[in-house]
């Protein structure tokens, strides 16, 4: 069991769920203990952190970003801007978590954020006093003098105030999974419309996935006091979920948020597997990112209630009226024992009725409409508005002002605000479609140009009645899947009251009226934005930070737009709307990474001799995804150079063995194989004899060297091509491009065989002698029978099929022996055993690199994607007698200048001096700067053969400067040494050894 850093030491029970009402979908037989800021409370299974805190009389749960205003929950869902806390502790601490969606579990530990020293007394609340100075965009206008002060004084202060929650700095201890699911119909949201859409599709036999972010399906049905047929809404929802559970073609995914709509019906969804648990099982993921491939999607994401802006509308205790209803009906909780409701539509009255039913005293329903409906149970004050509130850390009074300007204060600990509902259109606009304004609803509804194969139902489509939701869910599924609706049973009776919404956004005369509560954007800020010309929606958003907080503007964007519309005198529809972008709710970065972290970031490729090398104590190095032996330290060696020098000298004096399996190997067959290779290599291959190997240089079409390697002709119609380790995939892709796209009528077939063969370089004067001990006697590998650049199929060790190539990277007499990979380990061990008499020495990539530099062979550092065959000193290889990829564009003047770079060798005049790879070469005398740059060092190594460091460098007109003295500078590493330009072939320039 993994410890999730939860508090499970304290079981001190506190009584005091003073605001717990009756009823609700909580299990009162399962009490749960939890702490908030160190204090222990009790709630019930089924609670959220917010509902449990409210039950305990705690309204203050957070502080706002800029002014550090005291805040309590505004909502009961994922749109929450205020009740943001840190959950758990230690490395498991999770910042910026919504108390409104955090499921309560026993031992849950929560801490408030963005306050010091405590939530109730926050020193930074002083900002609120200076709010008149800290208006939208104030920082763009000041902090400029003196210039140096911005970074030294001002910015550090601003930065220190940044952010809400904190990262611990420790690695996330949880694991995350990623997965794939496919379906005919994806239903996003499990309210009445979603449940009906899923049921309709399920009964017709389609593969259905229904996902909802909540841990309990039913959507608003869980929050309302209403009936479907003769069942309570929540019970009906539960029965539908149970029904769906009987279908094998339905996958019901709760606690799963569909975060984004991507191209061609791919949806991202995050399932929270263990966030509601104190601990997880070993290997159990915290969350899973599902990529859902849906043929059709019905969006049933519901709607979000919108607030009304009025002065001091942000105190703890001020809530959306629908959220109040959720707390009362679903969780049996109220924020206080008395309430005022402020509404511009009938929905607020619903809250009043439900609260009243639950025993909460309704001080008044303040309705902006002069023709507001009246009620028996409580007072309705029509044609009035809420104009101010009181209460430092929590609401205690509400100011109500009538049309004549007469004001009075009503005492209340909670205030429910309802400005109507906005359809949750987010997923419809992730691909660029902008929602459209609906005059009847006074809200944005989904664009008619929905993402392909998506439809919208229920409140998300503007169907705000339960009856409408049920029917639109069925309709959407029928249309998407071509189900005949006449075959379906009749739907149960549900609430079908007409829903009207007025456009009432902001109480007249409001200034310190919050639109974006988390980021502290007020009506006044929007006015200033307008005054300064930031009137386009995107300008407004960026200038004021409206909608940029963790709640992504779900409760604030609409109000800001409306205020701007009023200021500019435009209809809201013309002001426009900002784009909704993924993710729908903020998503843990960990789940988007899944298992690809730590050592599992990339797969590991092991060479056939890996386990043997490990036994020998090899030091390994990452080469792409490969792990290769870098050197093989032996007893007494304390520095890597000792090992590498020994390996080089032993190879050059006797024999060494190196695993070079990682080189790409491509099998090229077909009657046109030679013609094909003639096309992809700049040098000729048509006339290469069977049994011979040739070095080949491949150019990109732009004439720059792409890769080099060898091609061995095993038969008239069969070559084996090698590539560099790094470019194996790229070269294969390129060759397939040439084969399929440029030469589609050649008879040639390609396949990679890199991993099929264990390939070992056996190099040094005793290489042949060693090989003769393993190569079967019928194969003559003498210099006459098997000369330099020969190749052929052989057998070894009494009949194992193998291939032998006489090629040399080290410059020594050398062979590369390939055997089937599973025998690679045994082959290496055999070579070591048989080579004992020659003191055979395994060598790693370092020694390999040293020897190739000594020999002047170009490798990755030289083939850096900007060098030409000319630069490499291989200009004559580019055949003019034929067309090959890149040959024409390699002729451009800029690639063929007289003073172009040429590969040369460098040796230090003082043998003790260091040659730095990456150093730049300057003339011996004269200034040292970019204008006088003569070239750069690509590769450098200590040559144990020569007893000093050597380097390969590209130098302007390099081949004409052999023997010149120059200066090698590396100001970055603070070195400057005198060097002599020499031939890049430091060892055996005539190549006698490799031909021996």
């Amino acid at each position, binding site marked *: 069991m993994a410890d999730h850093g939860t508090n499970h030491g304290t079981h001190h029970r506190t009584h005091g769920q003073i605001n717990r009402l009756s009823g609700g979908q909580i299990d009162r037989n399962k009490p749960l203990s939890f702490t908030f800021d160190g204090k222990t409370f009790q709630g019930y299974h089924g609670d959220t952190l917010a509902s449990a805190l409210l039950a305990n009389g705690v309204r203050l749960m957070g502080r706002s970003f800029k002014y550090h205003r005291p805040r309590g929950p505004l909502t009961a869902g994922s749109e929450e801007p205020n009740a943001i806390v840190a959950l758990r502790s230690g490395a498991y601490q999770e910042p910026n978590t919504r108390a409104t969606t955090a499921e309560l579990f026993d031992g849950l530990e929560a801490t408030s954020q963005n306050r010091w020293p405590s939530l109730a007394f926050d020193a930074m609340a002083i900002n609120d006093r200076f709010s008149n100075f800290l208006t939208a965009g104030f920082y763009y*206008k000041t902090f400029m003098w003196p210039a140096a002060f911005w970074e030294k004084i001002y910015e550090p202060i601003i930065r*220190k105030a940044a952010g809400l929650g904190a990262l611990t700095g420790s690695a996330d201890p949880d694991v995350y999974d990623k997965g794939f699911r496919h379906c005919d119909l994806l239903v996003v949201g499990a309210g009445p419309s979603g449940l009906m859409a899923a049921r309709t599709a399920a009964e017709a036999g389609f593969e259905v996935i229904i996902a909802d972010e909540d841990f309990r399906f039913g959507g608003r049905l869980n929050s309302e006091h209403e009936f479907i047929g003769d069942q309570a809404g929540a019970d009906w929802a539960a029965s539908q979920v149970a029904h769906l559970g009987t279908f094998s073609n339905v996958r019901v995914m709760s606690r799963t948020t569909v975060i984004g709509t991507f191209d061609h019906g791919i949806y991202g969804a995050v399932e929270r597997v263990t966030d509601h648990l104190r601990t997880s099982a070993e290997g159990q993921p915290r969350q899973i990112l599902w990529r859902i491939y849906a043929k059709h999607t019905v969006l049933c994401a519901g709607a979000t209630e919108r607030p009304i802006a009025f002065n001091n509308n942000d105190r703890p205790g001020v809530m959306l009226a629908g959220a109040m209803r959720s707390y009362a009906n679903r969780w049996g909780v109220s924020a206080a024992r008395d309430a005022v409701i402020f509404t511009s539509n009938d929905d607020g009255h619903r809250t009043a009725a439900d609260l009243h039913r639950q025993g909460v005293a309704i001080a008044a329903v303040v309705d902006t409409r002069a023709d507001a409906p009246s009620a028996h149970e409580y007072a309705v004050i029509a044609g009035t508005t809420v104009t101010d509130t009181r209460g430092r850390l929590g609401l205690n009074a509400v100011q109500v002002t009538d049309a004549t300007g007469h004001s009075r204060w009503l005492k209340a600990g909670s205030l429910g605000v309802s400005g109507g509902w906005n359809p949750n259109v987010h997923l419809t606009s992730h691909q660029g479609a902008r929602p459209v304004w609906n005059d009847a609803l006074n809200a944005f509804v989904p664009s008619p140009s929905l993402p392909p194969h998506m439809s919208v139902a229920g409140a998300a489509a503007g169907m705000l009645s339960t009856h409408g939701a049920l029917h639109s869910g069925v309709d959407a599924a029928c249309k998407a899947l071509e189900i005949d609706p006449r075959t379906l049973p009749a739907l149960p009776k549900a609430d079908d009251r007409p829903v009207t919404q007025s456009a009432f956004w902001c109480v007249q005369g409001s200034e310190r009226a919050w639109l974006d509560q988390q980021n502290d954007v007020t009506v006044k800020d929007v006015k200033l934005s307008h005054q300064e*010309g930031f009137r386009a929606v995107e300008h407004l958003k960026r200038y004021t930070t409206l909608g940029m907080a963790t709640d992504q503007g779900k409760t604030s964007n609409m109000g800001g737009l409306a205020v701007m519309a009023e200021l500019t005198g435009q209809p809201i529809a013309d002001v426009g709307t900002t784009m909704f972008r993924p993710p729908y709710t903020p998503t843990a*970065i960990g789940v988007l990474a899944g298992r690809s*972290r*730590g050592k599992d970031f*990339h797969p590991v490729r092991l060479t056939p001799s890996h386990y043997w090398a490990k036994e020998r104590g090899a030091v390994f190095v990452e080469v792409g995804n490969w792990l290769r032996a870098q050197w093989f330290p032996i007893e007494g060696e304390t520095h890597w150079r000792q090992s590498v020098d020994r390996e080089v000298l032993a190879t050059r004096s006797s024999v060494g063995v190196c695993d070079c399996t990682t080189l790409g190997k491509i099998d090229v067959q077909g009657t046109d194989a030679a013609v094909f290779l003639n096309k992809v290599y700049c040098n000729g291959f048509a006339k290469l004899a069977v049994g011979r190997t040739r070095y080949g240089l491949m150019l990109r079409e732009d004439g720059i060297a792409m890769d080099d390697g060898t091609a061995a002709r095993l038969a008239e119609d069969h070559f084996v091509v090698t590539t560099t380790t790094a470019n194996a995939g790229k070269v294969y892709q390129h060759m397939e491009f040439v084969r399929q796209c440029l030469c589609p009528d050649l008879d040639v077939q390609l396949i990679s065989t890199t991993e099929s063969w264990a390939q070992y370089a056996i190099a040094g004067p005793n290489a042949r002698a060693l090989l003769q001990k393993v190569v079967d006697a019928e194969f003559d590998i003498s210099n006459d029978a098997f000369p330099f650049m020969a190749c052929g199929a052989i057998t070894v060790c009494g009949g194992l099929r193998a291939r032998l190539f006489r090629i040399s990277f080290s410059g020594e007499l050398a062979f590369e022996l390939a055997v089937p990979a599973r025998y690679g380990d045994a082959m290496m061990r055999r070579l070591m055993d048989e080579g004992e008499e020659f003191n055979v020495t395994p060598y790693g990539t370092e020694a390999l690199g040293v020897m190739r530099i000594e020999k002047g062979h170009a490798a990755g550092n030289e083939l850096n994607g900007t060098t030409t065959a000319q630069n490499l000193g291989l200009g004559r290889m580019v055949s003019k007698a034929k067309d090959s990829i890149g040959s024409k564009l390699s002729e451009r003047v800029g690639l063929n200048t007289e003073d172009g770079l040429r590969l040369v060798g460098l040796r230090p005049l003082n043998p003790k001096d260091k040659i730095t790879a990456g150093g730049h070469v300057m003339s011996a005398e004269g200034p040292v700067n970019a204008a006088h740059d003569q070239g750069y060092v690509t590769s450098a190594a200590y040559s144990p053969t020569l007893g000093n460091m050597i380097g390969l460098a590209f130098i302007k007109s390099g081949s004409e400067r052999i023997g010149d003295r120059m200066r090698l500078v590396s100001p970055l590493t603070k070195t400057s040494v005198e060097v002599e330009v020499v031939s890049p072939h430091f060892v055996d320039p005539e190549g006698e050894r490799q031909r021996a």
Partner: protein
Amino acid sequence: MRYSGFKVIKEALTGHKGWRPAWRDPEPQSHYDIVIIGGGGHGLATAHYLAKIFGQKRIAVLEKGWIGGGNVGRNTTIIRSNYLLDGNEPFYEFSLKLWEGLEQDLNYNAMVSQRGIMNLIHSDAQRDAYIRRGNAMILNGADAEYMDADQIRKEYPFLNFDDARFPIKGGLAQRRGGTVRHDAVAWGYARSADSHGVDILQNCEVTGFRIENGKCLGVETSRGFIGAGRVGCAVAGSSGRLMSKAGMRLPIESHVLQAFVSEGLKPILPGVITFGAGHFYVSQSDKGGLVFGGDIDGYNSYAQRGNLPVVEDVCEGGMALMPMIGRARLLRMWGGIMDMSMDGSPIIDRTHIDGLYFNGGWCYGGFKATPASGYAFAHLLARDIPHPTATAYRFDRFETGHMIDEKGMGNQPNLH
């Protein structure tokens, strides 16, 4: 109106009644000496320098939507001059120097924050390449610093040093690199240009060029024909679309690059970090969000949005490098259209059409180039000769073989 701390205090005490629009909203005139197409960072900077430095009059900036809505409004805010090649490094160093004096030049606090940028090194070959680069930077007058793994660990203890698939072996740091509040760059240049008499015309889309006898006489727009002595195009991702109206094909493809920001977090990341073994770079904004990104999606797109594989790829890189961010939440992601050129380097040049000039091909590096791009383009437009730091940014370099290919990827734009 000059902005200052004093002014802010005065306005606060007098009800903020004195603030005026940051730029005017003028009606288009029938003719300008110079018309800049594109009200992004580069276009607005060009106008600012044309008016303020090069003394040009009668300048208009034409923007099809709202200014600053393209890549200057949707990037990851990094500035740096850590380039390798001679064609690039002096230009980007010039740009960094302009950034360093930007606020005073514009009388606008764009929050240039030189908190440093670090490119991490994970292999010997990478070290060799970065040493070459660091040396090139220093030889061109920029700053660069080599750091070994221990030094990096002291500054960034939360990086993955103990469990890394590709261990951190060192880093190339540029202390003068950093970040800038990106939107403010557009607004600051716009406000300054406007104060120097430049007409900024929003919602003015160019629908065509009027070209007669090989000379560009002006542009057709959604607000009517506007004549121009010279026309400069600086429309980044829309370059292909726009220049096709002049009959030009470009060595440019438009690709989508996604960027990401996390929820606000208390400061933990001092500078900009670039992962060298995956596609991930990150900084932390003054508001506390981790601003991060990675590779382009890799296919031609004008859609300003990307897809999940790259989102995942970037977050994988992030978790591999900084495993503490697993519990931080991605708040928002978006896409910008990158004018990916054939060698990864930009073009600031005359076109074959008289009076028509082009600035583009910035790939995903345009933001840091904004001041120098504007300056160099203004130089070209005003004097008809390239600015000394931008002489290599020619159209014909692909014909002559003088590519400026930092990454060595050749003529495949999505690899740059």
